[in-house]
């Protein structure tokens, strides 16, 4: 080493780049362990992945959820059946209406109310669920596009989502955590003018989808980063319990709405889009197509929705009318017992499921005859999907983790409960 080099080393505390020998400039050949998350700008939720990488290639990974665990099940065991609705809002916080609906249906199943709700209630539930499904898919696809650099698409989709949120705010009173649905019905009727507002909104959303599809579908950067990335076979998708858009993109022809129709899904017409390759691009296409199908369902619902009560006429679940509550002692006591003790659900256990934004969202409840669930379990699709992610990112580059996680659409609240 020359004197200048020694001097440089003294000053810099290390060797200068120009003075390194060939052997010293090579990267070490051994594997490296890198933490991705729990708080990473390009990850959807707070999830930690311990990656073992060979250069840029992922050799092994350990996905660790749980950073958003808020004890949904323990809290539910100490809340009345109605008090659980706000907790379900916070499971999948991009489509809270579907969670509300799933919980209400599980309790109704235990009470034997499943097919006895007024038609209007069922239609309102389908309408708000489909609106929520659209917001869910818009967020997922938009955010994934943003993570791949397409910021405009993200803004367009969020603009469309905001129109729906505004409408849902008119319906329920809250923009994000609606708590709108009740056991046996919904908390209030649709607001006046809802029909026209939603029709207008759907037309505008269709326009946005055309714009974004033109921007993304054949975009070179987007296409190259999505096609062939994170592909899953049909057999794998079934064995790992995947459902919803992810399974459908692999060709699994299963949709709860069609195969186990609940509410009034048997009275509306819609197609179940299927993918072929099961890669990220297919997942994206399936989700966009599902938005279009949801719009189709919504249009039919708006045409078919009948007039009628918004709560089942059953004193076990419905509150007495306000006038009676204030003026008669019997109604006041009933109101008080209903609020303080909760809805009394007969002892038993039941599993009820709906098609959530990400797939089969189920609630398993064990009731003991009191107003609070003895046990509440949520079968969260995100959790099941996240468990496959370790397999999916295997062999890909670190940069591919971002689109794969984006398209798995892991929602922290739902995954971690």
């Amino acid at each position: 080493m020359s004197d200048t080099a020694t001097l440089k080393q003294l000053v810099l505390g290390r060797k200068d780049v120009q003075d390194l020998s060939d052997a010293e400039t090579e990267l070490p050949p051994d594997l490296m362990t890198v933490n991705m998350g729990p708080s990473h700008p390009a990850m959807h939720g707070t999830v930690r992945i311990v990656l073992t990488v060979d250069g840029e290639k992922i050799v092994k990974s350990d996905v660790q959820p749980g950073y958003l665990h808020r004890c949904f099940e323990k809290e539910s065991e100490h809340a009345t059946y109605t008090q659980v609705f706000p907790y379900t809002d916070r499971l999948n916080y991009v489509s809270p209406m579907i969670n509300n609906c799933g919980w209400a249906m599980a309790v109704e199943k235990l009470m034997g109310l499943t097919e006895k709700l007024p038609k209007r209630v069922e239609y309102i539930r389908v309408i708000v669920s489909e609106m929520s499904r659209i917001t869910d898919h818009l967020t997922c696809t938009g955010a994934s596009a943003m993570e791949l650099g397409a910021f405009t698409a993200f803004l367009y989709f969020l603009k469309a989502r905001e129109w729906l949120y505004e409408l849902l705010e008119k319906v329920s009173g809250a923009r994000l955590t609606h708590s709108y649905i009740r056991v046996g019905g919904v908390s209030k009727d649709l607001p006046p003018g809802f029909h026209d507002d939603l029709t207008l909104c759907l037309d505008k959303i269709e326009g946005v989808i055309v714009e974004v599809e033109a921007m993304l579908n054949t975009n070179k950067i987007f296409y190259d980063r999505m096609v062939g990335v994170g592909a899953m076979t049909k057999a794998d998708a079934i064995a790992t319990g995947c459902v919803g858009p992810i399974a459908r993109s692999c060709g699994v022809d299963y949709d709860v709405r069609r195969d186990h129709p609940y509410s009034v899904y048997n009275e509306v017409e819609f197609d179940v889009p299927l993918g072929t390759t099961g890669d990220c691009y297919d997942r994206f296409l399936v989700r966009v197509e599902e938005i279009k199908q949801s719009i189709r369902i919504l249009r039919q619902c708006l045409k078919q929705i009948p007039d009628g009560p918004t709560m089942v006429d059953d004193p076990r679940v419905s509150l007495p009318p306000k006038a009676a509550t204030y003026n008669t002692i019997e109604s006041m006591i009933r109101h008080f017992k209903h609020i303080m003790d909760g809805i009394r659900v007969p002892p038993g256990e039941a599993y009820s499921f709906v098609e959530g934004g990400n797939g089969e969202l189920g609630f398993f409840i064990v009731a003991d005859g009191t107003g609070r669930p003895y046990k509440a379990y949520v079968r969260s699709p995100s959790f099941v999907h996240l468990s496959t992610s370790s397999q999916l990112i295997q062999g890909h580059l670190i940069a591919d983790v971002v689109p794969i996680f984006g398209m798995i659409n892991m929602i922290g609240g739902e995954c971690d409960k």
Partner: protein
Amino acid sequence: MSQKVLDALQAKFPNAVERTASTHKDEVAWIKRDNLVEVAKWLRDDPAMAFDSPVFVTCIDWLDWNPVGVPPDARWDESKPRFTVAYQLRSLTHRHRIRLEINVPESDPRCPSLAELWAAFNWQERETFDMYGVRFDGHPDLRRIYLYEEFVGYPLRKDYPKEKRQPLVRRDDLPINPIKVEHKP
């Protein structure tokens, strides 16, 4: 709807099936713990059953079971198994479903793992272990999943107080918690 599944199951394994029931349109079969794996394998591989798709695993802790309006002998007492592990399965080909329930005593909270048969149960069994402390024999990687390794006790057990806090990092804004949990290992 799927009563024939329960009938076939009972005909095939008369000794392994304790009882079956259809409650609220859910088909449930109570399986003896030692026979679970062979029953599950048959349910998956038999073409008439073809339960190819796993749904969920969870556990019920019966410690506080004191239901309203049923005879007192339905209450839980020391002589009855404390936990029930529930496996829900679904068939995509035949569109039927079944729930397998396995009674697990408190003294020996173990259950055979089905993670080898259905990959989805890998994480869900970890979750059940994390929350209820039921150990799954033959599970490839039985670690806590939501909580951290240092966590003491199993939070969804009925004897774990809801108010108890166990922050991993010391928090001065939380009171020092006097609530203690004692669990048998």
